[in-house]
């Protein structure tokens, strides 16, 4: 779906590459979590995926289409992006207007827009708010509207560029639940950028970035085993994983490493059960 072939990008020639000879491959319908501390190059990778930046060296291609100055408008139709600040990506004066913004840009006829805006808003469960002004919405709701604006265009990939960073715990949960819900009803590739490992646990695969390079890639369970190494590059291990390793150290063996609170609780109450 998305392929990076020895991609480098530098904002400033004197300061070295933000992304350094990065090669990676993302499958269709895969949910990828891209993690790394601040300045590891993860946001740059996101911007290279939809042509907001063009690589200084190497090639990027999205579903077979190579990214270049001639193709980035087409690539942006395939790759939608939700940004960090919910307030600063809300263009329209009402929820409906904002969802329609992308469709307007691509020149859809009005009847088609009306249909798509309604169905996209229903998919993120924000249809009841369609006439609201943005200042009446919470951060989580604004991010859901941003997702609807992208769904309306029907892209193949959605990138979440630290989309949960500015949300409160409820908003974070709301965002992840919305993504999980969407994955149940439609096929789409998701690139979820975060520095929160507990959110990354929901992904099919985690790619860890460090200093512009891919540092590790694997299933969440595999990646979380490298606790000490991860905290060395500035990533904090999720609480669940810390509990697991602490219990392990003290000789309490669980069946397998839990990823979420529910998995941990389920294993704990079965632990001493003889049935």
């Amino acid at each position, binding site marked *: 779906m998305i392929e990076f072939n020895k991609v480098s990008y530098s904002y400033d020639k004197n300061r070295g590459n933000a992304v350094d000879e990065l090669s990676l491959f993302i499958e269709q319908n895969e949910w990828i979590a891209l993690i790394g501390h601040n300045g590891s190059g993860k946001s740059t990778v996101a911007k290279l995926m939809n042509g907001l930046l063009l690589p200084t060296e190497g090639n990027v291609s999205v579903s077979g289409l190579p990214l270049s100055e001639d193709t980035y408008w087409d690539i942006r139709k395939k790759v939608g992006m939700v940004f960090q600040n919910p307030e600063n990506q809300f263009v329209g004066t009402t929820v*409906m207007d904002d969802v329609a913004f992308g469709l307007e*840009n691509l*020149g859809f006829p009005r009847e088609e827009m009306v249909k798509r805006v309604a169905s996209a808003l229903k998919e993120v469960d924000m249809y009841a708010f369609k006439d609201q002004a943005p200042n009446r919405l919470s951060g989580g709701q604004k991010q859901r509207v941003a997702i609807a604006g992208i769904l309306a265009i029907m892209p193949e990939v959605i990138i979440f560029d630290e989309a949960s960073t500015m949300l409160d715990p409820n908003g974070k949960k709301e965002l992840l639940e919305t993504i999980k819900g969407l994955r149940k009803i439609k096929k789409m590739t998701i690139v979820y950028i975060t520095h929160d490992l507990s959110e990354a646990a929901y992904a099919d695969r985690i790619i860890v970035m460090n200093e512009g390079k891919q540092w590790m890639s694997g299933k969440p369970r595999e990646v979380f085993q490298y606790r000490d190494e991860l905290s060395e590059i500035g990533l904090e291990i999720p609480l669940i994983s810390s509990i697991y390793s602490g219990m392990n150290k003290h000789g309490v063996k669980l069946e397998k490493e839990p990823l979420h609170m529910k998995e941990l609780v389920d294993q704990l109450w079965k632990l001493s059960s003889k049935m």
Partner: protein
Amino acid sequence: MNQSFIIGQYVPKESPVHALDARTKLIIVFFYVLVTFSAETLSSYLILFLFAACGAIVSRVHPLFIVKGLRPIWFIIILTFILHLFIQRQGEVLFTVFGYAIYDQAVIQAAIISSRLFLLILMTTLLTLTTTPISITDAVETLLKPLKSLKLPIHELALMMSISLRFIPTLIEETDKISKAQASRGIDFQTGRWRDRLKAIFALLIPLFISAFKRAEDLAMAMEARGYRGDYGRTKFRELKFTSLDLIVFLLFIIIVIGFFYFNG
């Protein structure tokens, strides 16, 4: 922050005036203003006043809102009236105030000029009370469309207007937050000499500007990511619709204008 904050003076109501297409209202207000400037006789003023009054009544907006809309302008209307009263020196002397002669022509002129001002403001207030800012923006964009062939950035202007409208509440909230943050650091906005207060305002304005620029940058990035490339190949979601109501109001207005010129001599 007041949650019921509304931009502009728009008063939502279900009335024929609200239901009119924003373009109709804009065009009528434009020609009304033109016609008002050529009014000379009492009966022509009466016709114009009747039209505006009917509009105000049909709009079902509470008269208090209209009075409130006129408030900043009362002073100017009264001032013009008084100035004209004293400056005009034609016709018969009507009476004298503190030894200063007031002429009858002056009274008539003063009345004419101030009622002109009054009618203009009444009509435009009625427009903003019954039309959302965003539909006014849309109407301006469609009405000015012909100017695009002269390479004037009409679409960009309209987009700037609508984005400003969208960000007004955001920036007000931000101002509120910054002024509280600065006040908690000991900055005094309320008291002191005017020079100190001016300095205090800078402590509010600078962070506000920095954050507004940051927002603009983020917004530009988000718009580009969603495929915004100016006016190129763009369609519109919000639509303005002429109905038979617009036609009726246009006809009515034309009759009023004809009547006006008939009585205007």
